[in-house]
Structure formats: C-alpha cells, structure tokens
C-alpha cells in the first residue's frame, strides 16, 4: 500500500502543474487575454451602458453607429446616450445587445464544454476499460458522428423546442463522440503501461485504477480538445440562433441580433457586422488558445487531434 502514494499523480495535481507551461505560450496568452476582455464586457455590461438591451424606441429605428438619442432607463429616469453600434429596426441599442449577447455565447461555450468533457470522459473511460462494452459504445459513437453536427443539433432542437438549455444539450450531443474517441484511445494506450498493470496485480479496485492511474493521462489532451469543443459550441449556437431555431428571440444573442438584421442588411449592414465581428473574434480567441495549448502541452498531440 505504501506504493500508492508514489504512483501516478492525482488528476487535479496534473491539471495544476500544466498551468505555467500553458501560460508561457504566446497564443494562449493572446487568445486568453481577448477572452477575458470579452467576458468582462459581458459581465459588466450594465456598468458599460445604462441602456436595457430589450428597450424599444420606435423613434430611433435603424440609427447608424454613433447616433445619439435620449432613452428611458429601467428606474424611470432618462439618459442621453450615444448608440456606438447604432440601433436595430425596433430601435434597440445594438451596443447593449452585443455586450449582453457575449454572456450567452460564453455561457453556451462553457456549459457545452463542461457537459461534453464530463460525458465524453465517462463514456470513453468505460469504453476503453471494459472491452465488452467497447464495440457497442463505439458503434453508437460512429453512428452519431455520421450525422453532420449542425443537422443533428437542428433535429434535436426541432424535437425539444427552442430554449437556452435545449440548445445547450442539442449543441453538446454531436460533440460527445469526438471526446469519447480521444479518451478511449488514451485509455487503450495507457492500459498496457507497467504502472497500470502493477496496480491491477496489486488488486487495486477498478474505480481507483481508472481515476488515479488512467484519468491523469487524459487531462492534457482533454484541455486542448475542450477548447475546440468550446469554439465549435459558440459557433453552432450562433448558427442555430441565426437560423431562427436557437435561443428564443427575446434573449439578445449574437446569432439572434444577426438574424434580426438580415432583412435590412443591404441598407443597414451594421446590425450584422458588429455582432459578426464579436462572434468571429471570440471563436478566433478560443481557437488560438486551443492551438497554443496543444503546442505547449505536447507537440505530438497535433496528430491525434
């Protein structure tokens, strides 16, 4: 039993030890920095603009960026504001809507990533460790992967109806098989390592082997894969909302703002361009973090991911 302490490290310790290496990478720093800025913009949106993102004003419809007007605030007062990004066809302030939209995109990205990594990790560990279940699980994953992810998400949303959480689950499900495959392949390669065989020979209970000896090896690849899942989730949510089947239209999201800007796009392109730029920059930042982390953690990962 003494050997236990010196064996493979705990998952949390592994994750923590990776942090300095990750932060040393310039892509991770730039991408992470952009993400922090966007998160702060979303989080402190009420401080950055007094305007309610759903506040309608028929007198200021389709104002160009930089136009000024007087708006009613929630507390009954009025304020003179500049519409930095202009207004949409209902007279809502696009600056406020884009800032509040950041919340939804980041929430969806984060929630989907957590759900996908947790589910994929569990299923992948089971498939890799219990050979009897492997065939069945992997055939199901192959089947899921055969349906292009946007179509699968569209079908699930059609099934469950539009809503924040239905969209999150619908976006998450198509991403799970890729994580399962990754985890399973790592489990298969780690299982044959002497330290795992030693643990098995010592009679270590299976759950302990899986969490303490196998799980730590999956951390680094999962961090990288997780960022790609996050980028993809933000993108697919925006696509679903843009197509009108995603987050309900009363919630300002980048996809919804763009969907509403479609009709008058030729005359007032700003309603599509501002949320579009925010969306692209956010996804770029997440992807940069992913690429940077991949290079920092293990150059060989490039082939597997």
């Amino acid at each position, binding site marked *: 039993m003494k050997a236990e302490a010196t064996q493979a490290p705990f998952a949390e310790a592994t994750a923590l030890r990776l942090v300095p290496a990750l932060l040393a990478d310039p892509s991770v720093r730039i991408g992470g920095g952009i993400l922090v800025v966007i998160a702060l913009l979303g989080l402190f949106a009420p401080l950055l603009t007094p305007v309610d993102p759903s506040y309608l004003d028929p007198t200021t419809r389709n104002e160009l960026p930089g136009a000024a007007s007087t708006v009613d605030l929630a507390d009954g007062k009025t304020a003179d504001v500049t519409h930095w990004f202009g207004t949409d066809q209902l007279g809502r302030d696009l600056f406020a809507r884009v800032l509040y939209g950041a919340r939804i995109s980041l929430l969806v990205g984060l929630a989907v990533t957590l759900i996908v990594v947790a589910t994929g990790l569990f299923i992948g560990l089971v498939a890799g460790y219990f050979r009897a279940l492997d065939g069945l699980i992997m055939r*199901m994953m*192959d089947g899921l992967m*055969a349906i292009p992810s946007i179509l699968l998400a569209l079908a699930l949303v059609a099934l469950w109806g539009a809503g924040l959480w239905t969209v999150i689950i619908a976006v998450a499900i198509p991403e799970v098989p890729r994580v399962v495959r990754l985890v399973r392949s790592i489990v298969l390669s780690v299982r044959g390592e002497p330290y795992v065989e030693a643990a098995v020979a010592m009679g270590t209970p299976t759950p302990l082997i899986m969490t303490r000896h196998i799980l730590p090896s999956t951390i680094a690849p999962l961090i990288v894969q997780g960022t790609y899942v996050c980028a993809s989730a933000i993108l697919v949510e925006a696509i679903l909302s843009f197509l009108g089947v995603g987050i309900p239209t009363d919630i300002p999201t980048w996809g919804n703002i763009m969907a509403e800007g479609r009709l008058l*796009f030729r005359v007032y392109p700003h309603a599509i*361009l501002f949320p579009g730029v925010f*969306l692209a920059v956010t*996804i770029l930042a997440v992807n940069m973090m992913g690429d940077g982390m991949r290079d920092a953690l293990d150059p060989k990962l490039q082939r597997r991911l």
Partner: protein
Amino acid sequence: MLGFLARRVAATVPVLLFVAVFVFLLLRLTPGDPAAIVAGDNASTEQIEEIRAQLGLDEPLLEQFGLWSAKVLRGDFGESFFFKQPVASLIGQRIEPTLSLALVTLFITVVVAVPLGTLAAYYHRSWLDRLVMGFSVAGFSVPVFVLGYLLIYVFAVELRWFPVQGFASIREGLWPFLERMVLPASALSVIYVALIARITRASVLEVLGEDHVRTARGKGLPERTVVINHALRNAAVPIVTVIGVGLALLIGGVVVTESVFNIPGLGRLTVDAVLARDYPTIQAVILLFSFAYVLINLMIDLTYLVLDPRIRY
C-alpha cells in the same frame, strides 16, 4: 483485397443502421402524438386517424421500423404536411442547387488549398508558411454567415460585381450560374480551405523529409517533379481522407450558406422544415445527408487502394 472491401463495407452497415434508427425514432420519441404532429395544427380527427394508419403507428415499434425502412428503401419518405407534397419530390426539386454549391465549393477548395498547403510546406517557416497557417486559424474562426454577409456587402452591394442573392441553374447558361455561385461558394470554401491547406502542409512536410525525396533530388530531378510527383503524390492519402471527413463541415455549411444567399436547396429546405416542425421532411434530409456522408467516405477509403499501392489490407 476483397476481404478488405468486404470488411470496410460491412463496417458501414451498423453506422447506417444507427442513423436509420435515430431518424426513425426522431418522430416516435417526440413528446405528444406523432400522428397529430405529422398532421399539423389544422388537421381534423379523421386526418390524424388516417395518418396514424398510414404510418402504422398502432403496430409494435419493431414492425413500424420494418414498415418505415421498406418505404424509405423504395424512396418513399411520406408526405410533407407543410409543403403539401411527397417529400421525395420535394427533395428532387431542391437537390440541384445544393449539389451545384457543394461541387463548386469543393472545386474551389481543392484548387486553392492543395497548392497553398504544398507551398507552405515547401517554404517551411517562411513568411508564406506563416501566412497560410495564420489564414487557416482565422478561416476556422470566421463563421460562414458572417463571411457571407461581408462578401455580399463588399462585392454585391458596394461594388455591384455580382447579384446579391439567388440561384440560377447551369442550364440557364454558365455565366448566370457562376455569377450567383461565386460568392456563396467562396464563403463556404473558406473553412474547408483552412482545413485542407493545414493537412496538406502537414503531410507534404512529412513526406519531404523522407529518404525517397532525397534520392529523387540526388538523381537530379527538377524540384517541380520532386514536389509534385514524389512528395504530393505520397501525401495524397491523408489529404483525401480529410477532404472526405470535412464533407460534414461542408454539409453543415450548406445549410447556413443557402439561408444567407437565398438559394432554394436542401439546406434551406432543412431549416424551413425545422421551423415548421415538418418531421417527414426533417427525417428525409437527415437520412439523405448522413447516408451521403458515410457512403462518400466509404468510397474514399476504397480509392486508397488506387492512390497508394502500398495499402493492401
């Protein structure tokens, strides 16, 4: 080789079966009465009963699946209750724009991405290489609908080089067809180019370091021949694989691009069907796209036998 063919074909059967079962269950697992959902909001009780009988919804689930599969195999996807016509003929009308868009995009992608990736690998670590790599990260991040609107705004609204939206069949002439296809296909191809250029660069780079390339150079072959015949040809397998796998991106992108550019194809049909909850149509398009995706990838795997004589399973 025949054994490989048989195994590879056999491996796709469970995948196709899973997709079929999923699509079949899509309607059956919906909360509420499937017959009522298919019939739509304005259906009478008799119509609902008729549909229930037509879909065999009173039968056991397994029998329903058999019934449904038999129909689907005959190309009968039922009747769209939103468009009021058989789903099969609906798909028939919509398939041409989608196929055109996909083929033009694929053409642009291969013509741009493979040379770009090869050059990046050849001039490894040069400014060109960095440019291609930077583009491939950026190309992955700009959503196709953002890019689509940007292209429309610059080239159709401001410069007026192309029509803003729409589709013209190639039967109406090459120019009307191309004129409306350039912008959507370019928008759609960007993410695909990013993917293929990246994998081309990686695989050519790997092959360029191999012994046979040094030998080819050593015997005085011109660089062109070395790069194209000795490096690129040997790098073809991973490139073609990723072109196949990337079709999933292309299919997803088609759905979005057709909505942005107002192209009356299968992608638009999918979105309209989801908005109207037109389940027979949703089932048909998902089945169609997924089967196409799986079967094309199957064919690609089989072409390896031609591309790479070393592969003998």
